[in-house]
């Protein structure tokens, strides 16, 4: 039994190392004032709430899509959050995309089909700049992954609009307590009752924001649900495998260690 003492030690050291890397020690934290939220997709078993994500699509489509593109997501991907084939076709068909040149070389427009990517509100970057005081509104596909603080930051940002303090000079922007630097170019997008939910849920501001966070977490990490369920099975297998290998190791080394 005497050699068992080595195991806790290496477990302990690995644990410390893991914690070191998983702590915020090396990562620059977000600058603004952020409320740490608990979402359905947090934690080991957390998954994206698909009903919430579907409502979030409605919020995106009716409020955000006027200015923000979603260029990495295809309409067909909406099948993942529980829309039917027909619903996806119908949703896609309300948008227009440039068709391939026809036999006469004419370029026409056609309505979008499920394999098309979400249609951008702009023809090109210059148009986006011209319509928004020279700055392109960020694409939202990866917005949750691309900001320090992730989903909690995004939630706090949408709730973070306040009247500016007396001494704060706002030349072109709005005061937001969560935004780094506190002056954001985007006006407050959600106030509550901005949409009428298809499933009858009451569209409070809180509800709209949480639904939008669910939707955009899914657009950023469409693999999240699969990843976590696969991860759990892989982890269980590896724990079992490690135990079997440890016992084999003890047995094989018995001759040497006596």
């Amino acid at each position, binding site marked *: 039994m005497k050699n068992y003492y080595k195991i806790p*030690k290496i477990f302990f050291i690995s644990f410390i190392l893991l914690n070191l890397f998983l702590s915020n020690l*090396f990562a620059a934290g977000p600058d603004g004032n952020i409320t740490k939220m608990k979402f359905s997709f947090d934690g080991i078993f957390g998954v994206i709430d698909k009903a919430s994500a579907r409502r979030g699509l409605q919020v995106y489509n009716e409020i955000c899509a006027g200015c923000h593109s979603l260029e990495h997501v295809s309409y067909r991907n909406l099948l993942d959050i529980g829309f039917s084939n027909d619903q996806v076709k119908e949703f896609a068909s309300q948008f227009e995309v440039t068709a391939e040149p026809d036999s006469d070389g004419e370029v026409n427009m056609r309505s979008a089909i499920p394999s098309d990517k979400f249609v951008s509100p702009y023809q090109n970057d210059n148009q986006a700049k011209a319509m928004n005081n020279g700055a392109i509104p960020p694409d939202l596909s990866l917005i949750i992954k691309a900001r320090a603080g992730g989903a909690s930051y995004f939630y706090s940002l949408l709730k973070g609009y306040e009247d500016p303090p007396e001494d704060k000079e706002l030349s072109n922007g709005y005061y937001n307590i969560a935004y780094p630097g506190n002056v954001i170019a985007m006006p407050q997008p959600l106030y509550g009752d901005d949409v009428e939910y298809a499933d009858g849920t009451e569209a409070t501001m809180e509800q709209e924001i949480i639904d939008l966070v669910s939707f955009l977490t899914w657009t950023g990490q469409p693999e999240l649900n699969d990843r976590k369920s696969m991860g759990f099975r892989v982890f269980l297998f590896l724990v079992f495998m490690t135990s079997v290998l440890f016992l084999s190791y003890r047995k094989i080394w018995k001759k040497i260690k006596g």
Partner: protein
Amino acid sequence: MSNIKNGKGVIGWIDYRLPIFSTLQHTLVDYPTPKNLNYWWNFGSLAGIFLLIQIITGIVLAMHYTPSVEGAFASIEHIMRDVNYGWLIRYIHMNGASFFFIVVYIHIFRGLYYGSYKSPREVLWWLGLTILLLMMATAFMGYVLPWGQMSFWGATVITNLFSAVPIVGTAVVEWLWGGFAVDNALLNRFFALHYLFPFLIVGVVILHIVALHTHGSNNPLGIDRKGPQDSIPFHPYYTIKDLFGLSFVLTIFAAVVFYAPDYLGHPDNYIPADPLKTPAHIVPEWYFLPFYAILRAVPDKLGGVIAMISAILILFALPWLDTSKVRSATFRPIYKKFFWFLLIDVIILTWVGGSPAEGHFILIGRLATIYYFAHFIIFMPIIGIIETPKPLPNSISEAVLKKPIKDGT
């Protein structure tokens, strides 16, 4: 297996003409290994396996990746969304790089603690450091490939370091870029080299193993083996121990890959590269932070670059900087303490490297940098001379038969 030696059967026939099976038998099965290796000796084989994981996942990623400034970012998202299990392969590759460095850094610190760089293993040590340098170049170029904000600005900062070279600096930087800015030409060559370098690493790893097997593994006592009673065959004793260690590390690896896949990365790299918009903090990947801290500790650009490069090059001189004949820190009471001071110093450098270069971080960074070099240039040679080592055991088997020595790990 007996067919290998007597030349019978297909394996024997081939081996008589090309001794590939007897070489494998010698390296992975019979290879006599000290019987007293502890878990810190698991990290060499772990590093080899992580190299293999990186190469396999990397080749698959290269099949779907587009090396152009217009297409790179979107092709990564294509891998994450449309390629079957592309997200898994990419997350393994991203985090595999981090784990490769964790494992290699532990492997190096094990070498420092047990004096594995001392005669007759100097060339083995150099080959290991060469692998580290190649790894750093590979990892840096790999981080550029997604062409996110940190990719672009990291590439800009690091390639600009070469402009510190007197007279030819600007010319060297433009030669590296293949133009007058960090652009498509640089991305293309980085992709080509990122694919090439791992195979150079494989080559040096083979030399590393040849050098290792020439005099055999060092061991926690740091004394030479006196006879067959001190050794056991690699298989099954160390194959099973390495497999157990591998399975344990893969469990931690899986936890990160599946539950915190983006944690070791930087959120800014999910923003496409924009040459007109500098991120608030440009930070390299965590495994470069100690060196980044040393770079920034020197107020002069050229001086900083020289200090950063010297931080690794100085390790090549270790066999002569360490004046003690005793290998293992177990028997070196003073050196053992300084080993831990060095480890703490490197952790401080990592922390400073990841923090903004302002306020008290500047002072801490400078002191930690001075200490880092002082450890190797001043303390190591002096400790070797003034220290009285504890008495060494006569042989490994004698020490193993007695109560196992409590070493300081």
